[in-house]
């Protein structure tokens, strides 16, 4: 399935990068403002779905660079990896750890295991939806 309208092609090329940037923005600000890994993942997925509608499944696979299935696995891996610091410290599973990295200009970068976990959720959600969409689209080609 592939659309041949010029408007969709052009719009997709403009909107998709914006959506992707927005999804990453949502992911990182999620801990304090509306957003987070789940919503971010959904926005990113809709970006790729838009692209897939405009250009078809195969180009979407190319632009994703990794197989959707691997995205799933990567997501689970990130989520599991976020449990390691607590494990090493002998705390209950998934106890949060926070690190603050000083940045030039006096500000700090807040890094934490919940963030790693949220990245995992982001990737898992994106991977799930892309698995659905790409395979469904390919199945009738």
């Amino acid at each position, binding site marked *: 399935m592939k659309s041949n309208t010029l408007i969709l092609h052009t719009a997709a090329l403009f909107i998709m990068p914006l959506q992707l940037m927005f999804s990453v923005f949502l992911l990182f600000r999620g801990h304090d403002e509306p957003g987070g890994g789940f919503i971010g993942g959904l926005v990113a997925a809709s970006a790729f779905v838009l692209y897939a509608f405009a250009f078809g499944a195969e180009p979407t696979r190319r632009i994703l660079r990794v197989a959707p299935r691997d995205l799933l696995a990567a997501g689970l891996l990130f*989520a599991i990896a976020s449990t390691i610091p607590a494990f090493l410290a002998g705390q209950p599973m998934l106890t949060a750890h926070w690190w603050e990295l000083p940045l030039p200009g006096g500000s700090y970068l807040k890094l934490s295991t*919940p963030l790693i976990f949220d990245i995992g959720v982001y990737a898992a959600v994106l991977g799930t939806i892309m698995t*659905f969409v790409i395979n469904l689209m390919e199945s009738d080609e």
Partner: protein
Amino acid sequence: MLLAVLSGFLLAIVAPALHRISGRYIGWVLAILPATLTAYFASLIPDVQANGSMVLEYAWLPGLGINLNFLVDGLSLVFALLISGIGTFILIYAGSYLAGHRYLARFFVIMLSFMASMLGLVLSDNLITLFVFWELTSITSYMLIGFNHEDMEARKCALQGLFVTVAGGLALMAGLVLLAIISGSYSLSEILASDLAIHEHAFYTAAVICILAGTFTKSAQVPFHFWLPNAMAAPTPVSAFLHSATMVKAGVYLMARLNPSLGEGELWSQALMLFGAATMFTGAYLAFSSTGIKKVLAYSTIMALGTLTMLIGVGTELALTAFICFLVAHSLYKGALFMIAGALDHETGTKDITLMGGLKKTMPVTAAIACLAALSLAGLPPLFGFIAKELLFESLLDSPLWSAGLTTAAVAAAVLIVGVAGLVAIKPFFGRVGNTPKTPHEAPLGMLVGPAVLSLTALVFGLAPFLPEGALLRSAVGAVNGSPVDTYLALWHGVNVPLILSVGSLVLGLSLLSSWNRLQPALFAINTSAARFGPETGYFRFMEGITVVAAWQTRVLQNGVLGLYLLLLVAVTFGLTGYTLLTHHGINLTLDLTDSHFYEWGIALLLIAAAVFASATHSRLGSVASMGVLGFGVALTFILFSAPDLGITQLLVETLTVILLVLVLFKLPEFVNLSSPFERYRDLAVATFAGVVMTLLILAALDVQYFESISSYYIENSAPLAYGRNIVNVILVDFRALDTLGEIFVLSLAALGVLSMIKLKAEDQHKP
């Protein structure tokens, strides 16, 4: 002690590697472990003599009251010594018997695990631990019996053994739990030490029935005896081990172990006597009428198990002494005879006794050992079997209940067993030279060590019964009895009734044996026609019945009509919810609508309209689109009530759902109305019902608050504890991260499931 029990499992892990290193001497190498264990258990004998019993404790799941406690007393030590002692020779024997077998390493892995489970079973003090080991022996013996897994028959027999013993195991678990409830403890040593009148408790009957269901199936008592001869599909070393000292004795062990606690009730002793005597006679008869050497031995094992069960049931001090002696004697001669049978099979190429004869010239050592073991089986002096048999007769004559009947059954069984002993020792080795498929020659050393040592042990015990008696048997009898017993074992008791009975059964047995060739065809015909009404036929009927029921309920419940699945799911869920709501809470219809705004009404109307349109339209696309409207309306509601995260998520999910549905819609065939009006009205009724229940549930939830809401905790602690101001996100990734972790795993699995469905479908279409 912990190491002693678990070392078998540990060695099992490295057995394949050892096999690669040690090659054909693997049996000898692995046998070092059970030999060491035998020495270790023997070193505990002085302690047991001094203290009676001891409990060695290792915490395992202290929170649940389940500990790896080990109870060491006369009884468990006798069993442990038999298991590790006979196990030593079995491993040596197996290394030789199965030399060059493709799966030899796998065999040793299972065998060692089985041995370790067996040791755990007899040494456990905790009922739960005991049960775990009990089931482990069922599982490992399943793998051992079905070891020749390419053979359909072997697999079937293994499965039969597993079903029967595991079904019994289930009952046993219930029985053990009941016992623990009655006595208030899961510890065997505490149960045995308590002076509660267990047999007066209301649960006593139920507990006894459940426990006996477990032990009878395990120890192949009538009517569950049929799995044991079928288990002969296993390689001979397995049969030798399973049937002499281990698997089938597990049930006997448990009955002996619990005898002091449960033995005071009449139900216990009468059931044991009745089933034991029936089993004893059936086993002896079937042994005498079989022709395969392993079958003969298997049925004689059943006879021995029946005898042991009966002796526990009789329960006098004399009977319990006979029990322990018979147990030891049987383990020694049966282990030896099975290994001899395997050697015969190995060297002659057949299991059929009728084909063997005159082998004493070609296999003189085997013949000598076989005779020695068979003498013990027949209960002739000067072997230990004789002492056991004399005690058996003496205790039955002296039984407080049913003395005459039991003695008759035992004598009849003894007559038949003398015949059986002749079958396995005289028939193959003496007389006319038989016509065997392979030219026989003497068995290798590895296959002779075991039977030789076991038979000689039986001889030594027979000549000097005070040796094992003083060391262990007396305390073992005491353990089964519950209080110390004075035993006196001797080879020669003078001329008395038991001796006369022995001589009589010997004469009758030998005359039966001489006419065996003539009787055999007739017996075979009787057995074949009787088998149609036997318990094994019942077993097969039952298994067929299960298949039929499974097919029926799959047809009814899993018929592939998605609508029906949904209908059942919704009807059951909301039926139960509605019932609970009605009975526990009642219906509340009051709703305060005063502070509602007009736009809220607008959204509500939009939602209702979308829902009605979605279910009424004939256009699929229209239906999907109106479902989307419904979703957006819900998202709008979330945003109105200041839940932006939920609102955004809902919007995105709805969008993507519509896209996915549209993708699928293109592949569907033209819309056709397949359902009848009745079905549509039924679906409407269920849907309406679900909606009504849900509405009532929400109204009820507004009305009551059973617990203080946890949201205030999250609101207060989100920022200070989790450094985040977005509570929804903090809950997702921090407070309840484990839930989220589970959810993304489910999500991924769902994705993989959908992927495989799409791929399968695609492959189907590519097929011509």
